[in-house]
């Protein structure tokens, strides 16, 4: 140990229940040396040289937040689409203001074009609503913004794409082109509209090539890493490693981003089981072992991931009786349920942690049956079998999960953003109200984490918002408390984005709380969540994060 850095703070919440508070934390070589007060850590400070860094002296320090289930690389590719719609909306960075008029949209596009880095790549925007933003865009209007950068603007109802002249060239159409849906001015010149399926498909091809082209995965990681950092996240896990572009390319993108200092997070790559089986067959366990030894504390892999039903917002999860209000739109995953024990067995026997996606209570039943069968074959302690999402469930399932030693990683955001909608749409009032039963998990004694699943569902990626949802359970109307008995305490909710999330990722020995010897990851807040009105939790500002002892700002 060469030199210690001490960060004094207005308050430190360690999330170590034995020593819950402090006013200073000392770090060296990426790890925590001591937490307590300047006075309590004197035995260390007398023996080693130290600096005091007081940048957080009036701030509140937590262990670095952990979102244990995201898809940053996959979702990040789409985040290059700029939003120009009329309504306020949730975005990964928080609430995004709508634009009131066509002039405001053109103004925004002009600003984006001015800072657009590569003029050969299209500048892409979506969400334009000609009904409420004063009429259609057209080629001449967009040419005035830029006649060199290709501009592609997709309408809110994506049956119309607007393009400027460079974009028309990229799409490969000119005034002599023939096809339905190519808009024209009265003089026969193309006006930059692509209307309806055949035409929009044509207009989308160069954009798809640019969104998914070489290098976009890496760019997505950088972009989403910044988004996650801004929300206070220091550790996450990619729960479909391998699915998009393959195991090695996805790993290499993350490794490069970390090496070049553009990704201020730790990340665990959790392989999508069907792809792992297809890619490596009998060698799959060896492959995972080799990646584990190649990995380190910034980038590593553990466990394996199954997807066994659909999603909550698309109403494709699998439910028990009485089922869907209307047509049953449920989907199961790629692995047949009757093969589940057989498919999980090699991982269970090898001690590989299993993360199994189950949104509906029928799927939760199947998952618990599978876990019970595996336990009967070969009993294991501390296996950390985790049900991912756990959107619709029962109190009995929570007890059974705890009895089998299982964990839950829960998507809590839907309680606020979608549950009221689904009372009369898909799931019915009872199940919608009781979406994400954290109170039941707590009463059953099951350990659980909160996650965003930040993917293509437009809900924010924000642990503080997740905590707000878990503590308040206020519906989209801003008033109704959804299943009050499923609310949890603030302390429990904060554990679920720190130490208990680390437990779900099997890293609570080194992450998730501020204890001597652990990795020095912190999230620095403007205000103390334990002091503010619970309804103001989501408004607390994230000042900075510290990763391995180093501020990321």
């Amino acid at each position, binding site marked *: 140990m060469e030199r210690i850095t001490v960060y004094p703070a207005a308050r430190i919440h360690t999330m170590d229940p034995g020593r819950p508070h402090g006013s200073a934390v000392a770090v060296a070589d990426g790890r925590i040396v001591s937490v307590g007060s300047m006075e309590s850590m004197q035995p260390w400070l007398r023996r080693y040289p130290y600096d005091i860094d007081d940048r957080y002296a009036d701030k509140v320090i937590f262990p670095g937040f952990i979102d244990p289930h995201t898809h940053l690389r996959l979702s990040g590719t789409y985040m290059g689409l700029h939003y120009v719609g009329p309504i306020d909306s*949730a975005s990964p960075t928080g609430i995004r203001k709508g634009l009131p008029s066509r002039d405001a949209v053109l103004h925004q596009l002009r600003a984006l074009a001015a800072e657009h880095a590569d003029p050969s790549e299209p500048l892409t925007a979506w969400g334009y609503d000609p009904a409420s933003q004063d009429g*259609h865009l057209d080629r001449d209007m967009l040419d005035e913004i830029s006649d060199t950068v290709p501009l592609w603007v997709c309408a809110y109802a*994506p049956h119309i794409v607007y393009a400027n002249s460079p974009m028309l060239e990229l799409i490969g159409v000119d005034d002599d082109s*023939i096809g*339905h849906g190519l808009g024209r001015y*009265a003089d026969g010149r193309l006006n930059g509209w692509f209307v309806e399926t055949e035409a929009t498909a044509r207009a989308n091809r160069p954009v798809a090539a640019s969104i998914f082209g070489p290098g976009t995965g890496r760019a997505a990681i950088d972009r989403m890493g910044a988004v996650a950092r801004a929300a206070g996240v220091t550790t996450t896990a990619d729960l479909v490693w391998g699915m998009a572009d393959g195991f090695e390319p996805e790993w290499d993108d993350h490794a490069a981003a970390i090496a070049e200092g553009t990704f201020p997070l730790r990340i665990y790559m959790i392989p999508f089981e069907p792809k792992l089986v297809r890619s490596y067959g009998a060698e799959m366990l060896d492959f995972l072992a080799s990646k584990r030894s190649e990995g380190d504390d910034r980038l590593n892999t553990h466990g394996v991931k199954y997807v066994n039903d659909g999603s909550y917002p698309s109403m494709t999860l699998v439910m028990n009786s009485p089922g869907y209000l209307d*047509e049953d739109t449920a*989907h199961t995953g790629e692995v047949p349920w009757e093969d589940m024990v057989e498919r999980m067995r090699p991982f269970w026997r090898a001690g590989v942690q299993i993360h199994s996606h189950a949104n509906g209570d029928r799927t939760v039943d199947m998952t618990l049956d599978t876990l019970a069968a595996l336990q009967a074959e070969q009993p294991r302690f501390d296996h950390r079998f985790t049900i991912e999402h756990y959107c619709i469930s029962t109190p009995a399932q929570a007890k059974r999960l705890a009895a089998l030693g299982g964990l839950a990683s829960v998507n809590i955001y839907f309680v606020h953003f979608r549950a009221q909608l689904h009372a009369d749409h898909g799931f019915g009032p009872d199940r919608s109200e009781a979406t994400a039963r954290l109170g039941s998990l707590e009463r059953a004694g099951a350990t659980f984490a909160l996650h965003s699943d930040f993917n293509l569902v437009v809900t924010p990626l924000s642990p503080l918002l997740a905590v707000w949802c878990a503590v308040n359970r206020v519906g989209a109307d801003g008033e109704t408390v959804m299943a009050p008995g499923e609310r949890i305490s603030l302390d429990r909710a904060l554990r679920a984005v720190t130490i208990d999330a680390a437990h779900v990722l099997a890293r609570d020995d080194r992450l998730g709380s501020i204890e001597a010897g652990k990795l020095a990851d912190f999230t620095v807040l403007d205000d103390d969540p334990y002091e503010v009105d619970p309804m103001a939790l989501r408004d607390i500002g994230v000042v900075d994060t510290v990763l391995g002892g180093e501020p990321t700002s």
Partner: protein
Amino acid sequence: MDSGDPGPLRAQPGSVDDFDAAWQATVGSIAAARRRPGDSGADAVGVTVLTGFLGSGKTTVLRRLLAEPAGLRIAAVVNDIGPVNIDAAAIDGLQVASRTPERVELTNGCACCALVDDLAETLEGLAGARMSDAIVVEASGVADPATLALAAEGAAGCMLDGVVAVVDAQHLASQLSDPRVGPAVRRQIDVAHLVVLSKVDQVDSAEVAGLADLLGRLAPGRMVVPAVHGRIDPRLLLGAALRGATFPADTGEHPFEVASAVVTPTRPWQRAEVAHWFELSPPGLMRAKGWFSSPDGGCHEVQAVGRSWRIVPAGSAHDPAIVLICSSQEAVDSAVASLLNLDELTSGQRRPSG
């Protein structure tokens, strides 16, 4: 604007639900475009996307189509084979020829296939197997038909034939006024090339006229076909049903009579002229399919559903002939007359802009 007018200003953005749908549709449309760099040729299998809200009767339409496929081998792609209930005697005495969990084949060459993994892969598998003349995708009640249509358009060996929305005559008005259901139903109508108004026997004729009027305001230019018990002329639903230039006499079983005619070009036509004719969207034209040759000697396939049309190089040489199906005899007479005008234009002569 001269052409390609997307109609009245649309979109009712507002709810989280609708916003989510818009985002999903946008990324879905881009992901669909990723799959294939160019257009499929005319030998591609036509894919019809059949959409409609829960309980609208689209499964009934699908079952009727499989039972009376106009001699075509139709592959239906569904989320779940169960509800189609393909074994039931209601599929008019047809026998199941073979069955796996993913696929049930009928003795008339039609098949019902479960959607596995992603739609484009399923379609590419069916197109590659070359066992079907046409593919119908039944969209689940909540799926966005635009995204499915783009997936069909992007799948190798496939070509979007059209989007058909089944709309429930009894419940359309109440669905549209429901803030949670309305946007989805409007999107389905909005993206459709052809709207089938189902259960018209459950409402009186004045109501049918009112609904046609309402649909006309929601989606101007969309063709509306009434149907009883899911019966619709397959020639309206599927471009493949228009292959060849002759039809059996109409049996009169369809509550909605259509009129058809065949136009036979006597000389080469300019592609731009034919495109211009379709772009002007002759009143009452519901379907068209056929072939013509151009002055440079190329053979082109043309097809149209409602006001949507496309002209592509033909996969193989065909005798020039174009089948037109219109909503009435007057409409088809007028369409034939104006299309035959093309035959009188000499090569290279440009029709004055309409």
